[in-house]
């Protein structure tokens, strides 16, 4: 039990016994109250947490850069260049085998929707 708690306990005991507290005790309590630091405000704590040290600035900047980079990569799809027709041999469409043409088709649900 520290000195502060001891003084308070004495004061509470005096009060319960309806005995006036001695002057010295009252003076002690007042001194303790004066010396007590005010409780830090929640905003102050937040500010301190955010300002941090130099390393925190670096870590924060790196995180922000990574987040911005990830957003850009996701938001801007890779643009498809012009189709590489020159490299791909154009299939001769004269005399195509009927089976090869039939293989181009697959079963469908018959829906009329955009591609997702």
């Amino acid at each position, binding site marked *: 039990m520290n000195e502060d708690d001891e003084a308070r306990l004495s004061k509470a005991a005096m009060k319960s016994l309806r005995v006036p507290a001695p002057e010295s005790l009252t003076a002690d309590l007042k001194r303790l109250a004066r010396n007590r630091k005010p409780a830090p405000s929640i905003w102050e704590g937040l500010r301190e947490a955010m300002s941090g040290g130099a390393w925190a600035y670096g870590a924060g900047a790196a995180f922000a850069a990574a987040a911005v980079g990830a957003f850009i990569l996701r938001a801007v799809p890779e*643009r*498809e*260049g*012009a*189709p590489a*027709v*020159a490299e*791909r041999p*154009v*299939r*001769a*469409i*004269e*005399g*195509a*085998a*009927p089976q*090869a*043409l*039939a*293989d*181009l*088709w*697959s*079963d*469908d*649900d*018959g829906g*009329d*929707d*955009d*591609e997702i």
Partner: protein
Amino acid sequence: MTRYKLAALLVLAALPLQAKPRAPRPGADELLLRALSGPATGYSAVQRVQVFIPGKKPKALKVNVTAQPWGQVRREVLPPKKKAAPLVEVRDPEKPEAGLARLRALYEISVSTGGVVAKRKTWKLELRLKSGVLRRALWVDRDSGLLMKRETYRDDGSLRRRERIVKLELPAPVQASFKTAPVSGPWAPDGFVFVGESGGARRWSNGLESYEVRTVGGKPVVSGDLAEDDAARVLETAGR
């Protein structure tokens, strides 16, 4: 009537003034010419072609389409099996006026609002035979004139075929010219290729549908799974 009610009524009455004015409906010929000319910019798209055969499950294929401004269109049909070779076609544009004249000769054409296709507002063109039978419906992008969707119907009104852009990038960078393989013979609709000749008839197929051209009494005759306008265009070029 209290003052408040009057004020509320005035506000309600004024709301239509704030509404966006409706786009004027274009004429059928103007819209068809735009659709036949194609967009003024290059584009790339994914098109789904569906064929509906009575009593069977619908079939579909996917086509990657790239096009130059008012120019050639390259169509690459992607087979479902990755090992199979794609079918690549490069189509040269027809003079829009010629296409319009052919359609006008065959169909009665009307325009209505077409809703949204691939996130783009469209006008809808209905092409009816002189008998009143609806043969085709076309959905044309209001901004660019690109043909977004086309449906073809049988005489009984059932849907036979649907070609629809399901994904579109417009404008899109497209190379200046496409490499083409020389194709001889009459014009063929998209996806149809020459598959052989027998008994004096030349035959074209897309794997599901087919048609043939034969000469009867010195004149070419087309028979098979083609709408009247496609058949007419085949006949126009049958002498090649």
